[in-house]
């Protein structure tokens, strides 16, 4: 369990506060009481075996999945799944990047990035365009503004997806195995963009299989096992001194 700060002032309240979260698919309980806090500016990596509930947990945070029991609070506001207006406000502040990029194939790269701000935040076209150009430059794809998504490599598409999520100026970015669908040579370019976001103080929650990256960039690593948070700690401590046999086995360190 993480230790919460002793003095509870507004600025030290966790940005994301999850308590006792339970989620079922029919009779199959996928999340069995998850507790997690993420503070502003923290980079949290969630690791674990397939089926441990990591992606499901991430998707609960921005409302793509519903949960049956427990509390989920983002920036002090409890998640109201049945209130479309509240969900819209939540998703303006919580962006997400997917394993399969999910770019809009019928729009150019630039229009992909511009679409949501111009609709949701009613940004005028020229402002949206300028922002899109700036963000694409930030991820190193300034010259690809008019290209179509299917003309780009996987790594480039994922970087466009990052720019698209950043266009909404979110406080928190959720990254769901963002490099798992990429060729190894393309993984580096995406990870360096994510790393630069971390350095600039963005709050990130990453589900990842890239252990080295998690170790390098995270403030806190969460190991999930069978729907619960099994171990939490600073990366050096978690990776070099795993406390539980499950984590040892997951990291491939179990003695034969």
């Amino acid at each position, binding site marked *: 369990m993480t230790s919460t700060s002793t003095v509870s002032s507004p600025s030290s309240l966790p940005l994301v506060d999850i308590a006792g979260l339970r989620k079922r698919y029919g009779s199959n309980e996928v999340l069995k009481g998850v507790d997690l806090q993420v503070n502003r500016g923290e980079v949290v990596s969630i690791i674990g075996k397939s089926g441990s509930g990591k992606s499901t947990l991430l998707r609960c945070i921005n409302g793509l999945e519903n949960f049956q029991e427990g509390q989920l609070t983002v920036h002090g506001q409890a998640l109201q799944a049945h209130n479309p207006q509240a969900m*819209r*406000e939540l998703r303006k502040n919580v962006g997400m990047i997917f394993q399969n990029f999910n770019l809009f194939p019928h729009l150019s790269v630039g229009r992909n990035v511009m679409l949501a701000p111009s609709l949701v935040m009613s940004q005028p076209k020229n402002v949206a365009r300028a922002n899109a150009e700036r963000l694409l430059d930030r991820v190193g794809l300034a010259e690809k503004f008019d290209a179509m998504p299917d003309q780009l490599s996987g790594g480039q598409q994922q970087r466009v997806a990052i720019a698209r999520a950043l266009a909404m100026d979110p406080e928190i970015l959720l990254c769901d195995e963002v490099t798992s669908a990429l060729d190894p040579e393309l993984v580096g370019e995406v990870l360096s963009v994510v790393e630069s976001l971390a350095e600039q103080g963005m709050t990130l929650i990453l589900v990842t299989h890239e252990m080295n990256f998690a170790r390098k960039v995270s403030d806190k690593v969460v190991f999930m096992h069978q729907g619960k948070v099994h171990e939490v700690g600073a990366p050096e401590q978690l990776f070099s001194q795993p406390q539980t046999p499950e984590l040892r086995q997951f990291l491939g360190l179990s003695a034969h």
Partner: protein
Amino acid sequence: MVEFTFWDIAYQLLLALRWTVVLSLIAFVCGGLLGLGLLVLRLSKLPGAVKAVAVYVQVFQGTPLLMQIFLTYFGLALMGFDTSPMVAACVCLTLYSAAYLCDIWRGCVDSVAKGQWEASASLAMSFAEQLRHVILPQALRLGIAPTAGFMVQIIKGTALTSVIGFIEITKAGQLIANATFEPFLVYGCVAALYFVLCFPLSLWSQRLERRMRPQR
């Protein structure tokens, strides 16, 4: 015995052809609008909406068009509306087209990857914005071929309205064949006219599909 020239026959058929075209267009446009409304209703997941639309579609897909035309014609009369065959034919074909088009387009929307819904939702887009800017443009691309295919079905379906006395080219063909005692010639011309309406439509839809597909 009166002699009819080929031109006599052709001229009467061409006059009746107008009505086939008008009826087909009304059925497609009105049916398309109604079908789109039903589609949005079905996608909105309002309580009862999915079931209601599914029942509507099943009724029209599960019964022969001929029966639907009879029921509409006599049903409207029973309800007290003074209907001409034209009105009954338009109403029936509109309802029929709406059912099929709604189902075709629902299939196209379902074919759009779930990730598109998730990505646009994560960007805080509302349901209407998701449909209008992300989902429907992609579904449209997938929908051209089956929609054009159904348009051809509508054109051929107008032939059945002859049974309630609506004078389109099939009915006109019957009347002319009875008058001229040349059924093979007359019905041959009728079939040729249907072909002239349907074939360019198929060609155009193929061209439209090709244009919408990205060039590789």
